[in-house]
């Protein structure tokens, strides 16, 4: 028996999981809400395609042999906060749902299905529809320890999209724009303790797309359009020398002003910046 709808999600981010949805027709949609797992690709968004008849047949086969309902999972045993996979299949009045966490061994048959679904995800993710990219440029650290640069939000898919305006009002949900930096140390010496984090303290618009104002809640971004902002921040640098810097833009608001918003957390590309010795331990302005 074929499924009517498949939903496969990964709780990478607490507020919104990555979700693959496949309809019986083969229509497949994948929504990502964080690029934390692929830091070299500063994008999140919506991807869509239609599976071929062969792909759909193979997917039905993967869900039927063995039947999903018979696969062992971790239902009722996944601790709060665990990065879990969820497989939910609706088929003619019956819904089967499996939850797989990271704190117990995964049954090989279940793991095989997860691996297969990850392949489906990878295929759908090659078809961007509404994709938001965050680019960091022109970053520099002053002698006094102030960090400044430019961030650009761009719509890089074939369809228009909308996202929260980083300059917009904090209600109904704030936009969190922060910075991460770490020293360029040899592998093995660098640890998570070296990461300095701080909020972006000042933001001003450099370029806004048509229809957006500096104070609007939402920035509509037609396909190919972008919005740019100059930012300033201060981080507690603990050593001088070359550092890697990236931005993190986070917003939980999924819908506002008749727009579906690209939401979640988005890490920018990484830039190298030299940190002068005078910037280490510099007092806050």
């Amino acid at each position: 028996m074929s499924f009517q709808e498949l939903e496969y999600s990964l709780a990478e981010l607490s507020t919104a999981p990555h979700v693959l949805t496949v309809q019986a027709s083969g229509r497949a949609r994948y929504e990502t809400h964080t690029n934390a797992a692929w830091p070299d690709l500063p994008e999140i968004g919506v991807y869509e395609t239609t599976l071929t008849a062969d792909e759909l047949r193979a997917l039905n086969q993967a869900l039927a042999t063995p039947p999903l309902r018979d696969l062992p999972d971790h239902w009722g045993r996944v601790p709060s906060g665990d990065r879990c996979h969820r497989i939910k299949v609706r088929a003619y009045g019956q819904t089967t749902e499996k939850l797989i966490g990271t704190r117990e061994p995964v049954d090989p048959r279940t793991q095989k299905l997860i691996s297969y679904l990850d392949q489906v995800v990878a295929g759908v993710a090659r078809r961007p529809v509404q994709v938001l990219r965050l680019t960091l440029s022109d970053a520099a650290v002053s002698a006094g320890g102030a960090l400044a640069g430019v961030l650009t939000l761009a719509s890089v898919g074939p369809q228009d999209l909308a996202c929260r305006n980083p300059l917009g009002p904090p209600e109904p949900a704030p936009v969190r724009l922060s910075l991460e930096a770490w020293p360029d140390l040899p592998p093995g010496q660098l640890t998570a303790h070296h990461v300095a984090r701080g909020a972006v303290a000042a933001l001003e618009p450099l370029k806004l797309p048509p229809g957006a104002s500096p104070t609007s809640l939402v920035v509509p971004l037609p396909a190919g359009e972008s919005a740019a902002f100059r930012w300033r921040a201060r981080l507690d640098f603990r050593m001088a020398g070359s550092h890697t810097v990236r931005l993190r833009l986070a917003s939980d608001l999924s819908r506002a002003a008749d727009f579906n918003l690209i939401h979640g957390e988005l890490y920018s590309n990484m830039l190298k910046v030299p940190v002068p010795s005078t910037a280490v331990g510099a007092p806050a302005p």
Partner: protein
Amino acid sequence: MCGSGGSSSSGGGGSGAPRSTVVCPPRRPNPDQRYTVSCQWLDTEKYCGDDARLEVTCTPTPPDGSVDIEVLHPSGNSVLAQFSGHMTNGRMEGTWRTKAHAANWRDARLRFRGTVTSVGVMNTSSNQFRFRRRPTTEWSKIDRDHRCNGGFAPVVELHDARLEDNRVHYSMKLKLTGAGLSDARKTNAKTLVENTWNGGFNNRKFHRENCRRGDACDCQFDCCKAGFYLDLNFVTSGEHIAVEIVAAPAPPAQTPACCMGRTGARWYEPPFDESSVYAHEVGHALGQFDEYSTGGTDPSGTQPATPAAGDENLMSTGQNTTLLNRHYRRVLQYLNDNAGGDRYKIIPP
């Protein structure tokens, strides 16, 4: 008729039985008569915020008139409260809305003075009033599961608890396995977690539901109110929960989310957000659900899967250490289970 903190009724005997009424001309005080005034508490022990009944009688029966009541400081040198009542047929019954006057209210023994103004005679109560104490308990282990939505393991209440004179005291012991934490990091984690949960209650109190002063009660002491205190300690044995400490990956890899439960607890060190992550995880061992859609959410809806705008909090949002009344409801339950039937609620609501 009433002065500060009291009220009265009057009439012979105080019985509610119906009586015939005889209309008499007003009595006038007899200047040659010796009057004897007796004062006594009818309620000698009440919780702070209750009404305690008192009685003043006068023989022979004086003219009907007012009686001044003064509740005396235990030292006898000052007056804690005063009000007036009306004496009819030689008897006045009034109530004092009890209110602790000092931190040592438990030791206080209070008398009152009644003055029958129509004859100018006073006396001090023959008996004493004292405040009723809230019960206290020894340490006991709380070990409860609370079912989650979405197939997650139950959140647990797994810690020790004791009802002390002035507060509900929780003690949670965690044993760290895996990479562990340095002593400095343990101290840091303990401080952050305790400050979050104890500081979150700083502007709140557990307050007697039956306190007649209501939510606006201005008592300054632990009489009709109780506080909360959480101790978190890292131990090598006798733990409530074992937590595996895993070194967070070096950048640019992102630090994964920590998880917490009766088993399978794992904390990354350092956590993604120093300010909130460990306190959030400890919340799960205090019976708190996630308040975000992909987590272990509350089937009852007491903790919403997505908080209302402005209600973002420690259990919903990273870098947010706000705690709301609902996050102390299990502490309140413990208090109510052990307060001898006198129920409490959290104020402000």
